[in-house]
C-alpha cells in the first residue's frame, strides 16, 4: 500500500522454544494511530522491540517507507525514521529538559558525531529541540532538571525526545502507564495530535484512550494477531470479545 510508513510481514521472534511473536503482519499509514492491544504476555512489547530494532526478528520482514530495515540495529532505524518510547521512562534524568531534547535533535542530524563545533551552539539543533518541547507543551520547563519533574512530565519529555529525532513512525509502548487521570487525558490528546505527517503505533492497556484515538486496531493473543481492522469492526469481532474485550468489560 502506498501510504504505508511501516509494513511488517510475517514477523516472528523465538526465545529458545518460546515463540513470543509469530506471523505478525501489520502496517501503519501516515496520519494514523494504529493501536495494538491484547492481554499481558500477548507479545505486544516484543512486537515493539522488533519494530524498533531492540530485538532482531527470527522471521519476517520490516519495511520502513518501502526500505527493508529488518537487519538494522536500533540506532540505524532511528536515523532512518523510527522513534520510540519505552514502557519504563527512558530519559537522561541528570540533564535538563532542554539538554535531553537537544541530544535527541543532534543525534539524527548531520554532524551528529562532529568533533569540532560546540554542540550547544548549533542553531538548527536548538530550534528542533525547542520545537519538539513546544509540541508536547514543555517549552516552559526547558531549564528544569529532568529528574525533578513529575512522572507524567517525564513521559511527555520522552515523547519530545522522540519527536526531536524527526521520526516518520513513532512507537509508543504503554505511554499512559502509571499516570493519573488528568495526566493520562493530556497525554491522550498529545498522542492524537502527533499523527499529522507521521504514523503512530501505540501499545496501550487503557481502553478508553485506545478507543478515543486509534484509527485502526490490532488485537494480539499468545504472540499472534487474532483480529485487525477499524476500531468498530474489531469491537464487534466475536473472537476478540471472547478472548479479550469481554473480560475487560466484565472487569469494568
Amino acid at each position: 500500500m502506498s501510504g504505508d510508513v511501516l509494513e511488517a510481514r510475517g514477523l516472528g521472534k523465538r526465545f529458545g522454544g518460546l515463540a513470543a511473536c509469530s506471523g505478525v503482519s501489520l502496517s501503519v499509514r501516515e496520519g494514523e494511530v494504529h493501536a495494538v492491544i491484547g492481554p499481558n504476555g500477548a507479545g505486544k512489547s516484543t512486537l515493539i522491540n522488533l519494530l524498533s530494532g531492540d530485538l532482531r526478528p527470527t522471521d519476517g520482514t520490516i519495511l520502513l517507507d518501502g526500505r527493508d530495515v529488518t537487519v538494522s540495529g536500533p540506532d540505524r532505524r532511528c536515523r532512518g525514521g523510527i522513534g520510540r518510547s519505552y514502557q519504563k521512562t527512558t530519559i537522561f534524568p541528570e540533564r535538563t529538559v532542554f539538554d535531553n531534547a537537544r541530544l535527541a535533535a543532534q543525534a539524527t542530524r548531520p554532524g551528529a558525531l562532529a568533533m569540532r563545533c560546540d554542540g550547544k551552539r548549533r542553531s538548527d539543533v536548538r530550534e528542533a529541540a525547542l520545537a519538539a518541547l513546544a509540541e508536547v507543551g514543555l517549552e516552559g520547563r526547558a531549564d528544569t532538571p529532568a529528574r525533578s519533574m513529575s512522572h507524567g512530565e517525564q513521559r511527555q519529555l520522552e515523547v519530545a525526545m522522540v519527536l526531536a529525532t524527526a521520526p516518520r513512525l513513532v512507537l509508543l509502548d504503554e505511554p499512559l502507564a502509571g499516570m493519573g487521570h488528568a495526566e493520562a487525558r493530556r497525554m491522550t490528546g498529545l498522542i492524537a495530535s502527533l499523527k499529522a505527517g507521521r504514523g503512530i503505533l501505540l501499545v496501550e492497556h487503557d481502553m478508553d484512550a485506545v478507543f478515543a484515538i486509534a484509527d485502526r486496531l490490532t488485537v494480539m493473543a499468545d504472540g499472534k494477531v487474532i483480529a485487525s481492522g477499524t476500531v468498530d469492526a474489531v469491537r464487534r469481532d466475536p473472537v476478540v470479545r471472547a478472548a479479550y474485550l469481554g473480560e475487560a468489560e466484565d472487569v469494568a
Partner: protein
Amino acid sequence: MQPLSTRTHIALLAAVVAAAILPALVPDYYVQFAAKVLILGTLAMALNLAVGFGGLVSLCHAAFFGLAGYALVLAAPEYDEPSLLLTLPLAVGATVLVALVVGVLSLRTRGVYFIMVTLAFGEMLFFLFHDTPIGGGSDGLFLYVKPVLAFGETILLDLGNPVTFYLVSLAAAAGTWWLIRHLLSTPFGDALTAARDNERRALALGIPVFRVRLIAFVLSAALAGLAGYLSAAQFGFVAPQMLGWHLSATALVMVVLGGTRRVAGPLAGALVVTGLEEVLKYFIDDWKLVYGLIVIALVLLAPGGLQDVARLTGLGRRAGTPALKLKEANNVG
C-alpha cells in the same frame, strides 16, 4: 564546554605560570618528580576519558602506555638521537592500531565482562614482552640517547635536558586536558556521555554507540601512548612492568581518587598517589601497607574523589559543577 568564569581563568593562568617557572624555583630532583607526576597524570586523564566519560572501565591502559614506550626504544637508533618527529607518531600510531583491535573485540562486552576482557588483553601484551625476546624479555631495554626535535642541524627540543623534558611533559598534560575538555563540548562528547548514561536511550536516539565508544577508547589509548612515550624517554628504560595490570590499576586509583567527573581530576589523583608513595618510601620501610590503608581511607571518606574533599572543605563551593548544583537542588526539593 562550560564557559570558564574570570576567577577560574585567573586561577588557571596562575597554575600554568607557576608550573612553567617551577624549574627555576626547586632543585632538579623535584623537577623530575613533577615531570613524572605530569606523565602519570596524562595517563590518568587519558584513562578517565574512557572510564569517567565513556563509562568504560579499562584495565589495559598500562599496556598502551608501555607499548608506546617500547615502540620508542625499539625504533631508536642505538647511539644516535632518535627523532621526536619520527618516533612519537610511530609510538602513538602503534598504540592506536593495537587499541583498535582490542577495542573492536572488547567493546562487544559490558560492565564487569569488559573489565575482564581488557585485563586479559593487557596481560597478553605484558607476556608478549615478558616472555619473548622482542623487547629484551623480563630485563627490559635501555634507551641510551633521548629523543630530540631537530630542524636541520638546529636542535629545538632535547628531551635529555631535564627542564626541557619537564616543559614538554607539562605541555603534554595541558594538551591532553584541553583536548578532552574540548571533545566533551562537541556533539561527539554528547554522544559519548549519553551512551554512558543510558545506552538503550542513546541507541534509540540514533547514536551509533559502538562506533562512538571505539573512537573514544582509541583516542584514550593514543593519549596513554603519549604518556608512555614520555615515560620511556624520562627514565631511558622500558620493562614489561610498564604494561602490566598493576600500573593499569594504579592509574585507575588515580582516576577514582581524583574524581571521574572533571577532566583535571585524575591529574590531582596522580599527584596524590605519586606524592604519597614518595613521602612514605622516605619515612617507612613497609610503606606499601600504609599506602594501601591511606588509599582505602581516602576512597571510603571521599567516594566522589578529591573533588568531594574540596567540596566538603568549602574549597569547591565557588565553582560547583552543574551536577553538584543539581544534586543540591534535589536535596532541597
